[in-house]
């Protein structure tokens, strides 16, 4: 349960427990929190409780309602907020339970952490768990021809590498039966995948592949009379 502590001239006057769905603040005796001071309007402000949140609303008072020295019309109260009406101050305090619930709810809403705080948090966690944070270098795929053709090694520097007869292919293969695109190798979130695009058989480790196959280091790929090996290596820093 939340509490409201009425303070005047740095002295605590009264401590109110928030036992209802709503509480009103004002000079009129019908209010839940009565403040007998001319700077306070008859019905000055109200606080409503919905689920775990407390909403403070100014009731168009003459002198206004302030939270942490800022004038508000309506405001979602946080633990330790200072509400000022006239010369009186009300300190809003949530119970431990409510505080942790509010915190959880806050986290349930999507938010972004800046890079510095991300690193701080991860480093702290790693320390607690005794894990060393090692930044692994990004790996890049390479295909190496083993069929005696003069293609040599080709780095898969594109996200999508087309293999076939077409001039626009990143890896050009000849031969009468070679289609314009025989296969593609794409770099995906889970690694490199080779896709047979039809027209000719694509074999990986002597097995004809249907559609896609995730490549592992040292897999042997055969397309037509061509044969090459796939492997990954650490990317050299560019520039």
């Amino acid at each position, binding site marked *: 349960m939340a509490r409201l502590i009425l303070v005047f001239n740095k002295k605590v006057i009264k401590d109110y427990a928030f036992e209802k769905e709503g509480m009103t603040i004002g000079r009129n005796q019908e209010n839940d929190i009565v403040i007998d001071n001319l700077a306070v309007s008859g019905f000055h402000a109200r606080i409503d409780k919905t689920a775990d949140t407390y909403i403070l609303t100014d009731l168009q008072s003459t002198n206004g309602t302030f939270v942490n020295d800022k004038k508000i019309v309506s405001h979602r109260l946080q633990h330790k907020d200072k509400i000022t009406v006239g010369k009186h101050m009300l300190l809003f305090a949530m119970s431990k339970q409510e505080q942790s619930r509010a915190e*959880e709810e806050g986290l349930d809403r*999507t938010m972004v952490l800046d890079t510095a705080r991300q690193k701080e948090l*991860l480093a702290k*966690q790693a320390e607690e768990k005794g894990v060393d944070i090692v930044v692994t270098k990004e790996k890049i795929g390479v295909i190496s021809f083993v069929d005696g053709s003069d293609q040599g090694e080709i780095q898969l520097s594109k*996200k*999508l590498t087309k293999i076939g007869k077409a001039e626009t292919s990143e890896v050009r293969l000849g031969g009468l039966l070679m289609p314009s695109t025989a296969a593609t190798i794409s770099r995906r*979130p889970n690694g490199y995948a080779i896709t047979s*695009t039809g027209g000719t058989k694509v074999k990986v480790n002597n097995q004809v592949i249907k559609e896609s196959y995730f490549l592992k280091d040292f897999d042997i790929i055969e397309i037509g009379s061509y044969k090459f090996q796939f492997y990954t290596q650490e990317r050299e820093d560019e520039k």
Partner: protein
Amino acid sequence: MRITAAALSDTGLTRGGNEDYFSIDNSTNLYIVADGMGGHLAGEVASRVAVETIKKNVNHWVTNDSPEDELFDFPDRSLSKRANYILSSIKLANRLIHEMAKEFAEYKGMGTTVGVLGILPSIAIAANVGDSRIYLIRGDTIEVLSKDHSMVTEQVELGLISKEEAENSPLRHVLTRNLGSLDTVDVDVFEIEPMNNDRFLLCTDGLTDLVSDEEILTVVKNGDDPKPLCQQLVSEANKRGGHDNITVSLIFVKKQQDVSQGITRRFWHLFKGE
């Protein structure tokens, strides 16, 4: 190539408003979802600005066949031209949202995730920032073509927590990247060769928080019309509490069955007697 696409956005069961936004552009085969964040109406503004900016610019560049070097920011040489259009439009949207958030008090702190899919006959491009996902459903498999930019993903990658712990972590909604927070943004882009009968799903975390990949696969394969399947996906999330806005977009690809592949293609005219 024939593409059928549908999308649906639902407020869910507990949120007051819908901060998600989506778009389907059949002229450029461009599909976008975004999940906005920020107080009052700012989240809704951020997701809408992102989607409209990306759609408008990609459309403009495609129409003009703009050279890659004339786009916003530097092109990525490992990507196709169309992928660079998408990449550049996302970076532009980021700058725009960032400037708006800086300029106007009511937009302070606003941001959005974004998931973009572009399809050409020989290439499908998936680009994302934040935790909105792009799935490829091919045959009986489901594969994520995007990266979650969230704290829990980093924690899992560093071996600090397990995948199970990640699902229940209080940090699961804390992103490491979005559009709007900083004046520049890193975008993850993937390219694949689309195959006949490929199905793509773009969605916000309102779905993936509550419905597993396997369950998504089952629903997506449960028919051939994307529209009712979108409704089924949203219903699944709402059945489990619908604690967030839910947006899904399904894109089904049909490629003409090639009688004329490889050798037959080159001699087809002879067979036909032309």
